[in-house]
């Protein structure tokens, strides 16, 4: 047998003797037929005609051995003994053709591996069709860890008594490595892409913050110049006002002017001085950027105290006060004096809106909640809206009245300086402007809207103290 094999030249690959019960077209007698075509010897079937162009078996063997894929053949009718084993197979398995031919997988591999091959062979035979194993891992003694793409084909020819398994293995290690690299590169790329997206997100976030800061800076600068202007105006106007007041005081004091209207004239002059002074004070308040004196404050009692400050106005206008003060309200960092100004101002506005209407009701509610997404900026005009983020614990004070409400075309303007709905001489038009400014200094928000029923709802929101 070995001699037969040797006849095939380098890397003997066929074991003709392995084909038991076959007439053996590759036996020793073939040698004498060297130079004759295979077809001359194997007349009828297509299988044999295929070989017609090869001059001899040796040539076929050379072709087999030069195939870049491993090719083997097992004879299923003889215990799956190996009858064909080309050079590439020897390279991959480290088993030479001499060693392999005539052996079974159990002679060549450990039992586990042999079982695996044998099972596949049986499946291929019983299915009677090609089996494609796209990827198999293997430890090659020559080539280390390699990957194989194996195709097993059953060759069954009852007439000739053939029952073979043809195996073709392609070494796809390089392909696999390339794929792996590609996959890694892909992963790398998507990781880079993620990083890039993240960076981009950070960048646009930073950009937004920058814009907000810029707006704040512009606003701060504006306020500073308004502040300087206001201080200058205050000084220049207050001095003549002081003089006027002194004059009025002098004239008011008990002298008989002979004209019955003089006392009234003097009262009105005094009121005019007061009014001008109020406006100047409002301006200075509005523009002053004095530091807040922040203290952790319990809101419910603070709100009740502020209500006490307007009790005369409430009684005079016959307004009922309803308090819904929540329990467990966290403390809030506020400047008490400034926030008192805010509450009193909002209360007075509510009271004025209800004056002259019977059965006015001023409702004050306090509550605490966690800010939800989308609630972070109550007031679109507020540049400090971003100071409160979703998830923040916040405290709200709601002030609801049953008054006349705010006409829709006016509600946009209520925070504008010098906008007032009150008759000349009653309001300075700076109240809500200052109120809003104070709330913003506290990083809070103030929202004023008409209620569905009647009247106005003012909602103040502040971030709760971290410790409470």
């Amino acid at each position, binding site marked *: 047998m070995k001699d037969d094999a040797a006849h095939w030249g380098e890397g003997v690959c066929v074991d003709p003797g392995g084909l038991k019960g076959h007439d053996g077209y590759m036996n020793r007698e073939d040698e004498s037929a060297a130079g004759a075509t295979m077809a001359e010897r194997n007349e009828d079937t297509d299988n044999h005609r295929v070989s017609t162009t090869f001059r001899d078996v040796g040539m076929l063997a050379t072709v087999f051995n030069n195939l870049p894929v491993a090719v083997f053949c097992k004879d299923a009718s003889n215990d799956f003994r190996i009858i064909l084993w080309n050079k590439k197979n020897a390279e991959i398995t480290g088993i030479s053709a001499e060693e392999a031919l005539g052996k079974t997988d159990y002679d060549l591999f450990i039992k586990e591996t042999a079982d695996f091959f044998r099972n596949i062979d049986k499946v291929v035979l019983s299915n009677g069709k090609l089996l494609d194993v796209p990827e198999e891992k293997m430890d090659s003694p020559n080539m280390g860890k390699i990957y194989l793409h194996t195709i097993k084909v059953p060759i069954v020819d009852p007439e000739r008594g053939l029952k073979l398994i043809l195996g073709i293995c392609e070494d796809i290690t390089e392909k696999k490595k390339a794929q792996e690299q590609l996959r890694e590169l892909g992963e790398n790329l998507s990781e880079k892409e993620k990083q890039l997206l993240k960076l981009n997100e950070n960048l646009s976030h930073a950009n937004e913050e920058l814009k907000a800061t810029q707006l704040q800076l512009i606003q701060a600068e504006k306020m500073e110049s308004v502040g300087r202007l206001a201080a200058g105006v*205050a000084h220049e106007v*207050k*001095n003549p006002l*002081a003089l006027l*007041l*002194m004059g009025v005081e002098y004239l008011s004091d008990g002298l008989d002017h002979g004209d019955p209207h003089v006392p009234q004239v003097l009262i009105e002059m005094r009121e005019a001085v007061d009014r001008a*002074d109020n406006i100047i*004070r409002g301006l200075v308040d509005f523009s002053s950027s004095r530091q807040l004196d922040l203290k952790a404050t319990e809101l419910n009692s603070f709100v009740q105290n502020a209500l006490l400050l307007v009790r005369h106005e409430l009684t005079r206008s016959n307004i009922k006060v309803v308090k819904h003060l929540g329990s467990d309200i966290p403390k809030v960092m506020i400047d008490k004096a400034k926030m008192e100004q805010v509450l009193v101002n909002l209360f007075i506005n509510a009271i004025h809106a209800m004056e002259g209407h019977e059965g006015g009701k001023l409702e004050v509610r306090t509550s605490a909640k966690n800010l939800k997404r989308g609630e972070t900026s109550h007031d679109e005009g507020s540049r400090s809206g971003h100071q409160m983020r979703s998830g923040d614990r916040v405290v709200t004070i709601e002030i609801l009245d049953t008054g006349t409400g705010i006409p829709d075309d006016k509600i946009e303007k209520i925070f504008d300086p010098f906008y007032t709905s009150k008759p000349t001489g009653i309001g300075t038009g700076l109240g809500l402007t200052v109120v809003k400014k104070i709330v913003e200094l506290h990083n809070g928000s103030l929202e004023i809207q008409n209620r569905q029923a009647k009247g106005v709802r003012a909602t103040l929101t502040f971030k709760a103290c971290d410790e409470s």
Partner: protein
Amino acid sequence: MLVDDEEGFTNLLRMNLEKTGLFEVGVENEADSAVDAIRAFKPDVLLLDVVMPGVDGGDIVAQLRTDPELKNLPIIMLTALISREELSPDAVAESENLIMLSKPVNMEMLLKVIEASLGKKA
């Protein structure tokens, strides 16, 4: 005694104070010569403007406080720069003989503060 560069104001204020019959009133409209005038007049209480051309009220106070005879002189500073709320009633009691009052000030308020200052001195 009144020190303020606004002559109209000092005139009217003096007239108002004299009308009460309680005070003898000295007036100085030149900030530069204010300290000398105060030393000469020796007032029981000083009404002092803050913003004046040349020397301002703060400088004058500083000079007076280094003078042994005048360092305890009650001073009421009249200023157009601060808001009225900033004067709390407690401020009079707590102050070191120095009280800030916002212009315009009415006589009722001014007389109360003057009385409080003089009371403290006595």
